[in-house]
């Protein structure tokens, strides 16, 4: 299950299970959303993105769902593997984008995959 500890919220799952990481964003005018994965000692890596005119987008083993009504974003990872263990960040972008491509990051969720 999901819990809020002293630091990052942590989601602990068994290998092979599906994972769902949730994110609440702050601005209803945000036009673009993105999920990043950050492994220990590395920089954030792009996973998947979605524009505000969509409510679902699928990648390889990952799906992002966007609910603009409640300003909620989720990342679903199918058949979670030990290599998926990392901190996951959602980020929103306020318009107008382009040269002012400012991403506002959420607090991050630590995904711990148990073998």
């Amino acid at each position, binding site marked *: 299950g999901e819990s809020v500890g002293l*630091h*990052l919220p942590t989601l602990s799952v068994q290998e092979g299970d599906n994972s769902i990481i949730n994110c609440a964003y702050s601005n209803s005018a945000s036009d*673009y959303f*993105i999920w*990043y994965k*950050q492994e220990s*000692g*590395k*920089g*954030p*890596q*792009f996973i998947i*993105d979605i524009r505000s005119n969509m409510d679902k987008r699928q990648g390889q083993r990952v799906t992002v769902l966007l609910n603009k009504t409640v300003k909620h974003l989720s990342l679903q990872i199918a058949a979670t593997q030990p290599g998926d263990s990392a*901190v996951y*960040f959602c980020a929103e*972008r306020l318009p107008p*984008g*382009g*040269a*002012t*491509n*400012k*991403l*506002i*990051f959420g*607090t*991050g969720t630590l995904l711990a995959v148990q073998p």
Partner: protein
Amino acid sequence: DTAVSQTPKYLVTQMGNDKSIKCEQNLGHDTMYWYKQDSKKFLKIMFSYNNKELIINETVPNRFSPKSPDKAHLNLHINSLELGDSAVYFCASSPPGWQGGEQFFGPGTRLTVL
């Protein structure tokens, strides 16, 4: 080939010193960024440059000064370092326009101020 590179990877220094972190991207992107990640993993933008022009300047002490000699490089100079500056600093870049959503991050520079 590394897309976004930063040097050094680790930087340990005394309070009051001045230090620089360098960033280079070989992706041909127009826009580059500096982020600070604190001990709680919170990632916050500090600056962005588009084609050597400052675009985003968040509420950052003026001891921090970015410099972009060309659009492939964005360096960060920090004067009079303080304990609270200890963090991991990430450089990132992105293409222009609507494509500019995804930002490509470097490996980070862990700064420790003693």
